[in-house]
């Protein structure tokens, strides 16, 4: 593993000057991912905050080849790029060893782009897919997605007098992707750059499709001060809501802080710490919604136990 100093000396692939919000975790995640390979890389970007804010014509924040074509198809688009690479390499028109990466939000991954992602993984293209999961459609103004947490208020599942935010739990996409039995899938968080970069490096070198689901706090959508992004990301891990783990060629492993918790070296913090940290869960402080808080805790516990079983296999 290289040091921060060495990383700082590496070429900048995503430059400053983009138009993402202060405190947005997406450029932090993308920079960490792109530090994980020294090989030439092509980026495919789904429609969303990240695409809009890094590409406004005639400017571009990208120092590497970058393509955006639509919202639901970034995995299909990279399939095309990677197929072109394979055939042109076979024909001797390309000599270099190259890598391919997708960046997409949770809407583009859990919901509208799920089919294209599943198809691309099944076909075995060599690419790393990074879901920057901020748990809602932030670019269109904080609407509910399949990744939105139970109890979170969004503009399409607001907290009202009768309904306390989102009624459903998010789908467990990382496990669904792992069920494709691809070479590598993992969950990561930008607060632990070392863990994230190591996982991205494994993904780039997986020799086939790889998937990285990254918790990506959004100050606007989650309602917290923009300076707290990294703390909030860490809290997601410390409460067990976002366990850090990997599925590496069939083997499940906890990593980093989650590994310490699983080994009994650290305590898993209560979910109330997480719920209190963000305005989107503010309504859950009302004693009237106590049962929802209990349900969320019970769900975190259940999923944690499930992962413990998987990692002990």
């Amino acid at each position, binding site marked *: 593993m290289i040091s921060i100093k060495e990383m700082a000396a590496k070429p900048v692939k995503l430059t400053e000057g983009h138009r993402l919000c202060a405190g947005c975790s997406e450029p932090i995640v993308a920079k960490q991912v792109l530090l994980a390979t020294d090989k030439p890389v092509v980026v495919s970007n789904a429609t969303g905050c990240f695409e809009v804010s890094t590409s406004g014509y005639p400017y571009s924040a990208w120092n590497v080849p970058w393509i955006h074509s639509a919202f639901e198809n970034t995995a299909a688009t990279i399939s095309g*790029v990677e197929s*072109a690479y394979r055939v042109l390499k076979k024909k001797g028109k390309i000599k270099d060893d190259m890598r391919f990466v997708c960046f997409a939000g949770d809407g583009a991954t859990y919901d509208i782009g799920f089919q294209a992602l599943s198809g691309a993984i*099944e076909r075995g293209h060599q690419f790393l897919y990074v879901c920057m999961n901020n748990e809602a459609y932030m670019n269109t103004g904080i609407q509910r997605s399949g990744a939105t947490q139970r109890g979170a208020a969004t503009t399409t599942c607001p907290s009202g007098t009768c309904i306390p935010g989102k009624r459903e739990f998010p789908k467990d996409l990382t496990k669904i992707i792992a069920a494709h039995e691809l070479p590598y899938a993992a969950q990561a968080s930008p607060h632990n750059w070392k863990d994230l970069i190591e996982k991205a490096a494994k993904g780039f070198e997986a020799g086939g499709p790889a998937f990285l689901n990254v918790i990506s706090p959004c100050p606007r959508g989650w309602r917290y001060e923009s300076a707290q992004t990294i703390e909030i990301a860490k809290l997601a891990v410390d409460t067990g809501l976002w366990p850090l783990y990997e599925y590496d060629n069939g083997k499940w492993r906890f990593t980093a802080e989650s590994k310490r918790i699983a080994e009994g070296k650290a305590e898993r913090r209560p979910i109330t710490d997480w719920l209190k940290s963000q305005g989107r869960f503010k309504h859950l402080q009302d004693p009237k919604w106590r049962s929802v808080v209990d349900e969320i805790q019970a769900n975190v516990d259940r999923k944690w136990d499930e992962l413990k079983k998987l990692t002990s296999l």
Partner: protein
Amino acid sequence: MKRIAVNGDQAVALSWKQVNPDVCASYPITPQTIIVEAFSDYVADGEVDTEFVCSESEHSSMSICIGASSAGARSVTSTASAGLALMWEMLYIAASMRLPIVMTVANRALSGPINIHCDHSDAMGSRDSGWVQMFAENVQEAYDNSLMSFRVAEHPDVRLPVMNCLDGFIVTHAIESLTPMEDDQVKRFVGEFKPTKPLLDWKNPHSHGPFDMPDFYYEHKYQQAMAMKNALPVFKEVAAEYGKLTGRNYDVIEKYMVDDAEYVAVAMGSTAGTMKAVVDELRKEGHKVGCLKIRLFRPFPYQEVAKALEGKKAVAVMDRVMSFGAVGPLFSDIRSAEFDNRVHPRTVSYVYGLGGRDVGVEDLKVVFRELEAGTAKTVNYLGVKQ
């Protein structure tokens, strides 16, 4: 090369084999499926170098072609009906990214009700997507259009995707005689693919498909419109070269006994062939009739059409599609083209052959009979049971 007996889909697959494209992304849909089946045989036998990607949907097929073409690969696909409809979003994006993707469309009715047979509702639904659109009358033309389309798409003045339309079942599945070019002749004619600013040229990184605000979007659309306009003279140039090589001379329109005709029927696709047979029969009986075939539908050959129809007594326009709440798209274009002429012949619309309804010689004779008698309404639904 000697003549062979193949159907329209096999002819297209053969043209692709001879071109040897870099990437082919496809998804099965009737009546296009034979193309990808035949092509996958070429792949399995190592007769092409193509990366053959079996996508999980047509939306992804077009997205894969967009990724591959942007990366620097010559890319092809084919589809029909619902598959083209599913691609709809990506058709506009392929065109706006100025990617010379070549696609065959086996024209089939759109659902619903679900129907697998021929009409032009699929292609007409993508009329304004920014693709060059050509229609083939028969198997030979399906092959010839396919080969010419690579040159049109990749021409530096055009750089737009091209859609080759052939009538589902009528052309796709009918076995006809085909005279293909020799492999090396095709190779020379099509030439090496020269991508512009490919993604895989990582030392010179470019951003493809960026976000456009009101300050540039309009200008990009204008450039696209100019490129589309260029496709017409470029097609003529390419067709002239193709004619020299093959002896088969094509233009944006084809006039069949139109010059001295008093009554003309305008058609696209396989119906133009049937219409020519009708013209032959009626000419023998002394009727001064002709058929105008539109090969290049987008960009539309307004001037050529206006000139061809000048001074006629009456014109019937055959639309194999229903445009609900408006007149047929071909009729609308033909009338618009005629407007620049000093005198306008009575021009009427015939909707026909929807969902594969068979339209034969006797059916089409009705069109000329009604034109000559002056009994045709402005909009007619040929052969509909009421």
